[in-house]
């Protein structure tokens, strides 16, 4: 029997998700024993035409990482959707928009202006900016169209499953591949990670008071962070109570607060709103003035609560004038 064919692709991403696959170490040998990797630009030489030449549904599954922020990424994922039985959104960027999704606080014009005109390291005396088409020597050289708005994968194509995290934890990748090979997948649309909050598996959970009351949110540089006490109880903006478990709380183990890369549990639609609500619920406030003072003391709320999830949130992007 021929092995199932598998593809990996990247869109607006950093390559960290590819590293997560490499982090399988020798485990990757078990994966290639069971499947044929037929498309993976970082590791194998395939051109777009090779993918276009595949039969529809030829790949059993394609893991796609990265947000969708230009026309080429949209075209590629549309092709991959046709060629794949299953599409798995791999990592925070394809799941919720990720760090590149913070660009939704801006638009194409302001990003181009910064990157190609005003950034201190630019040397661009002619003020050139990327063009979709440039005529040269009687032919046309093309670049993809850069969008105003970053989108999640499921805002562009139909997605079957999600592997959360920035980058997805190795044990979850192994679990997903195993579930696919054994045909033991949950219902379509599921996030392939434990459906509980990070606080539930955090080593510091015993030190989280039952009735937590925060008088003031602190920033990491303002305090000496205790290495055993609940970070939220220390006043740090730790989003573990709003964030899905499954990462083995590696940030908290490194004495840094959770910033929500795993996204919400299945009972929540908007991660940022849930995280904000979770923080408001522990504010030691008796009236609106107290709430304003405590929550108002959080620097950059949109970037803090939606660090990985702005395109997936109800906010989606900054309103255009």
């Amino acid at each position, binding site marked *: 029997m021929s092995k199932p064919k598998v593809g990996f692709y990247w869109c607006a991403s950093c390559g960290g998700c590819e590293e997560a696959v490499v982090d399988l170490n020798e485990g990757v040998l078990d994966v290639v024993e069971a499947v044929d990797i037929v498309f993976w*630009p970082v590791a194998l030489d*395939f051109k777009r035409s090779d993918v276009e030449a595949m039969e529809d549904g030829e790949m059993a599954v394609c893991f796609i990482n990265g947000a969708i922020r230009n026309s*080429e990424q949209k075209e590629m994922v549309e092709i991959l959707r046709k060629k794949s039985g299953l599409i798995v959104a791999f990592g925070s960027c394809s799941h919720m928009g990720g760090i590149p999704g913070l660009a939704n606080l801006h638009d194409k014009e302001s*990003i181009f202006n910064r*990157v190609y005109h005003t950034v201190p390291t630019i040397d661009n005396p002619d003020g050139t900016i990327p063009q979709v088409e440039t005529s040269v020597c*009687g032919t046309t050289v093309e*670049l993809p169209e850069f969008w105003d708005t970053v989108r999640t994968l499921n805002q562009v194509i139909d997605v079957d499953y999600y592997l959360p995290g*920035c980058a997805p934890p190795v044990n979850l990748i192994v679990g997903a591949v195993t579930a696919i090979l054994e045909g033991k997948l949950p219902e379509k649309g599921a996030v392939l990670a434990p459906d509980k909050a990070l606080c539930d598996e955090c080593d510091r959970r015993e030190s989280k008071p039952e009735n937590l009351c925060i008088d003031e949110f602190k920033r990491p540089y303002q305090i000496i962070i205790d290495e055993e006490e609940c970070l939220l109880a220390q006043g740090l903006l730790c989003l573990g109570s709003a964030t899905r478990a499954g990462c083995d709380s590696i940030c908290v183990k490194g004495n840094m607060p959770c910033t929500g890369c795993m996204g919400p549990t299945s009972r929540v639609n908007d991660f940022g709103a849930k995280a904000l609500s979770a923080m408001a619920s522990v504010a030691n406030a008796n009236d609106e003035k107290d709430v304003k003072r405590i929550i108002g003391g959080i620097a950059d709320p949109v*970037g*803090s609560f939606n660090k990985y999830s702005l395109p997936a949130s109800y906010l989606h992007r900054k309103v255009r004038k």
Partner: protein
Amino acid sequence: MGKHIIVDPITRLEGHGKIDIILNDDGNVDRAYFQVPELRGFEQFAIGRRAEDLPQITSRICGV
């Protein structure tokens, strides 16, 4: 005009790339362009973030 060769994508590297090579009538390279079709705009969206978040944000420029 000669031939226009497009290598898209460039593979086995971290990042996105595309090469356009334009040959003249004699079959020699007239122009060659290395294009990076991907931009995310960290230069702009890092502004306004908390300073302590920047090590986490900028490490996603390249995760390799």
